[in-house]
Structures are given as structure tokens and as C-alpha cells.
């Protein structure tokens, strides 16, 4: 890490660093992980910094909150280039590229208004199966409607 970056945010002790987020998407990544900022733990955002790979990128650091690999993989829906660093006692103990999970539950709203998952009165969560990762294509398990990246972004309030 360059000294220039360290001027922006200090290193974290225990937590996760999500790097290589496409520029401008850091807030969406936080929303996707269910982090509003009111939970009390420390969160740092860096937006629109230079990146060798991406031109510009965002970085998110979250301290003191455990996130499972499944949770973190959801980040791939809006930030397919993201890499995750798990930090323990200032050391990177594991590092991986996020991958869209096989099944996505509850997070995305089906765009078909006649789908049973859009019924407020029913105890049901949306469920999508990934049929293609590049380009991203997921299918509602209940009504079969195909959703692409722009549908997912709309559902998550991005764009």
C-alpha cells in the first residue's frame, strides 16, 4: 500500500477491505451488505482513486464486523471486479475475488409484478438462480423471469 493512500485512511486491525470496486459504487456495496452506518462499527470509504487495473476505483473498509464469504460474494452483483481482504491483527489472513453465488435469496425484487414473491402478505422471499455470470443473467425461481445487470441495479436502487 502506498504512503499516499495511508494518508487517506489508516490501516484497520480486524475487519475487511473490499478493493477494486468500480468507481462510484462504494455506497451501493455497503447497501448490499446491509450496512447503513448506524450500526456503530467503523466504516471507511474511498471513492474515485486511481487504479492500475480499473482507471479509477472505490475502496471500502469495515472494522469490527464479521462478514461471511457468502455475504461478501453478493458484492459481485454490482462490483464484479472487487477483491476482498480479510484482516486480523493488521495482517491480511485471506484474500479472494468475489464470485456471484449460485443462488441469491431475499436481496433482489423480481421485476414481474405478477410474481408470487411480490405479495406482501405472503411469507416468501425472492430466490434467483444464476444461469450466466458473464454477462450476468439470473432467473426468478418462482416465475422464470430473466433478470440482467440493469434489472438488478434497478432493484438495488443503483444507477
Amino acid at each position: 500500500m502506498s504512503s499516499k493512500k495511508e494518508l487517506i485512511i489508516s490501516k484497520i486491525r480486524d475487519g475487511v477491505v473490499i478493493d477494486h470496486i468500480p468507481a462510484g459504487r462504494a455506497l451501493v456495496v455497503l447497501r448490499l451488505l446491509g450496512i447503513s452506518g448506524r450500526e456503530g462499527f467503523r466504516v471507511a470509504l474511498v471513492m474515485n482513486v486511481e487504479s492500475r487495473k480499473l482507471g479509477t476505483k472505490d475502496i471500502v473498509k469495515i472494522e469490527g464486523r464479521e462478514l461471511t464469504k457468502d455475504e461478501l460474494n453478493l458484492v459481485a452483483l454490482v462490483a464484479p471486479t472487487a477483491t476482498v481482504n480479510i484482516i486480523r491483527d493488521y495482517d491480511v489472513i485471506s484474500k479472494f475475488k468475489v464470485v456471484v453465488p449460485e443462488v441469491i435469496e431475499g436481496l433482489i425484487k423480481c421485476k414481474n409484478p405478477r410474481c408470487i414473491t411480490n405479495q406482501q402478505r405472503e411469507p416468501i422471499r425472492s430466490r434467483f438462480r444464476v444461469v450466466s455470470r458473464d454477462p450476468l443473467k439470473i432467473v426468478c425461481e418462482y416465475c422464470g423471469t430473466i433478470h440482467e445487470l440493469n434489472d438488478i441495479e434497478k432493484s438495488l436502487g443503483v444507477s
Partner: protein
Amino acid sequence: MGLLGWFNHDVITVLDFNREDFEVLFSEAVNMEKYAKSRLDILNDKVLALAFFEPSTRTRLSFETAMLRLGGRVIGFSGTEATSMAKGENLADTIRMLDSYANAIVIRHSLEGAAKFAAEIAESPVINAGDGSQNHPTQAMLDLYTIWREFNIIDGLSIGILGDLKYARVVNSLVQALSYYKVKLHLISPELLKPRRELLEFMNSRGMVYDWTDDPHNVIGDLDVLYVVRIQRERFPDPIEYERVKGAYRVDLKLLSRAKPNLVILHPLPRVDEVDFTVDNTHYAKYFRQAGLGVPLRMALLKLILKGGD
């Protein structure tokens, strides 16, 4: 799937089954044709719940008749009763109630995915009798069965599907069911009612042979089966456009003058005027036989699900 067979199995889409399963069902249905007007007391201890949140006289009565002919009993509701129920209770609670009373539940619902959701809640097997514009698996099984009874084979046939290919739920299920066979599909519809992207991608993924035309005259001479579905007025923003389209897609003697001699015309019924009444008297018209086979086919289905094969 094939290994599990039919016993205690939900019927949500035709894709829950495979070609061998259909063969088991069809041979059972041939046997049931003998009892479709009498009685076979094999489900005396069983109760079937019919949950018709949306009215459908034909499908409901054929399930009810099938259950009664097998010696079983039927409970349930349909139409207005269902709407008053819907005001007070959600689908999940209604299904839980029926699940505690009955050995199997037949559901018809206007929302897509309702049958799958019901099956996740109920312990008893759930049979989808139509949900939204997605699936109507038992109709598709009946359609296939009728074709098989007419030709003794399904592989190799040229099958035209004419009408509303976008919203008619029978089309989706029929095409899915035909994906297990080597058929040539001619899809015939107005531009506005072309199949949805989901169905086109399905056919591509299964390597199905198909084409599309907006004029039935282009393909009528090649067809062994012509399957007709209704085109509904509500689909058209412009009533003049609807009138024009309705005329162009009516199956009449003029269109049939170029048909193969052994062409079979099917229709899930009820029809309005998309098949001209003069066609009823020709040897092409098999839609009444198709409707009649609905009872033995559903007898076979209920027997396999509630009692298993022999």
C-alpha cells in the same frame, strides 16, 4: 425426476418430469380410459382438495370427475368463494389448512409461482392447475397424450402452435413438454404476441427445431398437428387491430384446403371463434376427443401420485 417416479411428487412444471415419466403416465392413462365412465375403487381413503383461486370450469371438473371415478372424495372452493377467502387470509394459511384436510392439493392461481410456493408450504403433493401465464403442466400432459393417442408416436411430427404465444400459459408448458421429443415446431402468431424471450431461450438451450411466422398459410401444408389457442381482445391496445388479427388467425375450411390429410387440430378449449364451427365436422377436429381424454389422463395422474405405480 425419472428415478423418483410419480408417487407423492408435486406437479409444478412439466420440467419436473422426463420422457420416461410421461410414458408411465400415458400407459396408465390408456388403462384408465376403460374406467372413465365407470368406477375404479382405488382411492377410497383419499381426499383431494381443489383450490381454484381463479375460475376454470373445465380443468376443475375434470379433476373432480377423475377423483370421483377413482372412488375418492373432493373438497375445495372456486371463483367467488375464493375471492372472499382471499380478503381475509393469505395463500400460505389457506394452503396449510387444506394440507391438514387433504391427501393432495390441486391449485389454480392468477399469480406466477403460486403453485411452487404452495408446494413449499404443503407436505401433501401439490398439483399446478395453472398459475399466471407460466405453467399449466397437466394440460400439456393431456395435449401430448392426445397427440400420442392419435399418432402412436410423437418423435418426427411437425407441430404448429397458433395464437397468443406470449401470454397463453398452455403454450409455455406444451413447448417445454415437447422438448423431450424430436419434433419440428412452427410457431404462428401476430408480431405483438410472439413468444417471450424466456421461451425462446429455453428452446435454444434445448436445441429444439423451430421457426416463427405471422401467417398460418405459410406452414399449414407441413403440419401433422395444429394446436390453436385463443387470442384475447385485452392484449390489443387498438380494437381495430384486434379485429384484423382475429380474422387472419381463424382456422376455417379455406385454410384447411391445403392441409395434410391426416392433420390433427387441437385446442385446450373453451374456444370463442378461433376455430370455425364448420371445422367441427371434419376429421381434422380432435379437440373434443382431447377434452374427453382429460378425465382418464387425470385419473392416471392422481393414481400415480396418491398410490404409485403397480
